[in-house]
């Protein structure tokens, strides 16, 4: 056995055999295979529980509190550190509560006043014990439920286990933790990881291209001019597109992920460059740089309200919803109009106007409705906490063309005309953004989005007619998707389907991208006729 202590396992010689076996035994016990566990203990002569811990366990379960304290002192090597004091305090607490349960108040107080101070666990802990006995519900005299007492003693052991140093006690579920850590490390280095289904213990984890949208599965051709904007609804069941043909279209996403036209929204006199879904997906807002804001009913496709009108020239460049789906906010490229919060009937609730409000390029509201992020012409980002009125300003060095917020509301990205995408944290803990590059952007408004499992990816349009995908861990593109023949203006990742992406292009089409398949049938592309 002595030699066994130094035996190692694994090709790197990092795993001590006796530790490995001890952890295996623990795992077998925790999975309920008690016979197998004790069999392995006997066969290997390696016990899961150390002698000190076994002794402590015996004393706790039999209620021999003096011996418990003695063994704790031995375990903690007679040091009076706070962990030891906490362990002793827990033992005394159990002891006092048991006396109270038996109705033995004077004995409990005697222990509290005479024995506890002798153990030098500190005044604070002794005072805490006094409070514990007042707060406890124990204080009956007579028969004590032994099952209940045993249950409490077992709970005490669990608490003590957390305090006792290694290697006397092994942390709970150690093998599970080690395996999980190994798997998570593999996932962290897997740039294509986009589904929990792909994880198996039988092989080292590595996802392929088929985990992310990388092949065109459908081309939508209902618009008669350049398509400037695309966005999936919050439920992922609809898609909205906006075009310079002065229309917006609501598309339905079917169960097989095919997309079909639901409503063409015709009322705008000028190009539509922006849409926004209400959080409950029942309403859609549309607007454009030279256009007013319109509210549509998703189910019927009926125009419900026009905010302002063309005569007053209240043009809206971007808009966003609050979580309640009854309030919205819109920003104008006209500084005199500024930013306005409305209800869905068109009543103005609040406005931010004046010299401090320059031209609004883009805006968003966090999913919790607490903050509003606004991009002002043309390099400034302002994050306003709507409750506290505290505002944080981020100044970029290059003009910003668009803004997108992550699903959890913790991060946002901005596209810059210098061919970079910058990722910022909303909390303001980062001094510098994460930067992503590789796409082309110099003349036009190009939009990007978060997507995939846990928003692990960013996708963006590009002036070179391609769609770019990055993993957040890497500044260089993971995938470049070809298919469009002109500038890709906007992309949207389906929030409920991590393998579905839509892109809108000047070539008048919207492409739906899905996971790459090994053998594509001839009729793979599905044309949606206008």
């Amino acid at each position, binding site marked *: 056995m002595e030699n066994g202590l130094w035996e190692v396992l694994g090709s790197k010689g990092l795993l001590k055999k006796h530790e490995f076996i001890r952890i295996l035994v623990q795992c077998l016990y925790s999975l309920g295979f008690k016979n197998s566990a004790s069999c392995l203990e006997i066969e290997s002569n390696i016990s899961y529980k150390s002698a000190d811990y076994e002794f402590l366990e015996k004393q706790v379960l039999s209620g021999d509190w003096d011996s418990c304290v003695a063994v704790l002192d031995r375990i903690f090597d007679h040091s009076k550190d706070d962990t030891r004091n906490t362990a002793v305090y827990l033992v005394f607490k159990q002891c006092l509560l048991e006396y109270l349960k038996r109705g033995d108040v004077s004995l409990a107080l005697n222990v509290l*006043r005479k024995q506890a101070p002798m153990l030098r666990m500190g005044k604070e802990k002794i*005072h805490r014990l*006094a409070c514990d006995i*007042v*707060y406890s519900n124990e*204080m009956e005299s007579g028969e004590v439920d032994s099952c209940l007492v045993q249950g409490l003693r077992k709970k005490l052991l669990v608490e003590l286990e957390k305090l006792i140093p290694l290697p006397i006690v092994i942390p709970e579920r150690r093998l599970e933790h080690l395996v999980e850590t190994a798997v998570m490390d593999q996932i962290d280095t897997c740039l294509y990881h986009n589904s929990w289904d792909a994880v198996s213990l039988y092989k080292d984890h590595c996802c392929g291209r088929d985990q992310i949208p990388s092949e065109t599965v459908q081309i939508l051709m209902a618009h008669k001019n350049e398509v400037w904007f695309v966005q999936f609804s919050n439920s992922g069941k609809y898609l909205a597109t906006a075009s310079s043909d002065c229309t917006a279209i609501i598309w339905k996403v079917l169960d097989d992920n095919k997309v079909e036209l639901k409503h063409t929204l015709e009322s705008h006199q000028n190009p539509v460059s922006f849409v926004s879904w209400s959080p409950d997906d029942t309403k859609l807002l549309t607007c454009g740089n030279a256009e007013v804001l319109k509210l549509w009913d998703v189910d019927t496709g009926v125009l419900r309200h026009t905010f302002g009108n063309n005569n007053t020239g209240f043009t809206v460049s971007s808009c966003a919803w609050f979580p309640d789906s009854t309030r919205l906010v819109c920003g104008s490229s006209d500084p005199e109009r500024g930013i306005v919060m409305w209800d869905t009937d068109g009543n103005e609730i609040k406005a931010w106007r004046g010299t401090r409000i320059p031209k609004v390029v883009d805006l968003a509201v966090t999913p919790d409705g607490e903050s509003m992020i606004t991009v002002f012409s043309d390099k400034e980002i302002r994050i306003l906490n709507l409750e506290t009125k505290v505002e944080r300003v981020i100044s970029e060095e290059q003009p910003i063309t668009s803004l997108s917020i992550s699903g959890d509301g913790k991060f946002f990205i901005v596209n810059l005309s210098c061919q970079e995408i910058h990722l910022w944290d909303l909390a303001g803990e980062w001094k510098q953004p994460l930067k992503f590059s590789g796409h082309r952007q110099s003349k036009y408004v190009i939009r990007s989005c978060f997507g995939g499992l846990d928003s692990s990816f960013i996708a963006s349009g590009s002036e070179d007619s391609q769609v770019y995908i990055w993993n957040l861990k890497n500044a260089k593109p993971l995938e470049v998707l070809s298919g469009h023949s002109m500038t890709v203006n906007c992309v949207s990742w389906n929030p409920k389907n991590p393998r579905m992406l839509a892109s809108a292009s000047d070539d008048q089409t919207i492409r739906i991208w899905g996971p790459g398949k090994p053998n594509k049938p001839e009729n793979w592309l599905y044309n949606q006729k206008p």
Partner: protein
Amino acid sequence: MDPRQFEHTVVADNDIHSIVMSYLLHNCFNETADSLASSTGVKQPAIDRDNMERRKQIIHFILERKALKAFELTEQLAQDLLEKNKDLQFDLLCLHFVELICAGNCTEALKFGKTRLAPFGKVKKYVEKLEDVMALLAYEDPEKSPMFHLLSSEYRQQVADNLNRTILEHTNHPSYTPMERIIQQVTVVRQYLTEENGKDAFPPFSLKDSLKG
């Protein structure tokens, strides 16, 4: 401050008598108040004698280590007063808990702590003081505990004063006497003058020194 600066200011005896009278009645020194009235002829303000007697009893109970009796009498005098003033209710219950411990009646103290004090532990502002009070259980001789101040007559007096003021307020009487207000005002004014004009012109005000004459 040089008395010559204010000794020409006339203060009527009657005003001084009224100030002293209100102080005596406020603090339930009713016999002294009667004596002052008969020897100076100062009129006693219309005050509920029964209310004053009860207040006197309540203060007496608190100072004589009978906090629970004070509690009960307060509830009789002003039914919902302690229910509305949780801070006072808490202070009185703490005093009773302390009394039980000092009397060596720990089993009773424990029961009382569980039923009447423990619920206050759910309110953040009471937690620290509650833990101090409960910690007395850990000492055979509470006088030698770090929380000995909870046993002091000063602490009891403070609780009695607070309760007295609250009862007065509850029965639509001023909670501070004119005498207290005048002293408070003088202190603040002198403090202000010292800050504005320097310590040489106006040395810091000391009530003790001015009482020496």
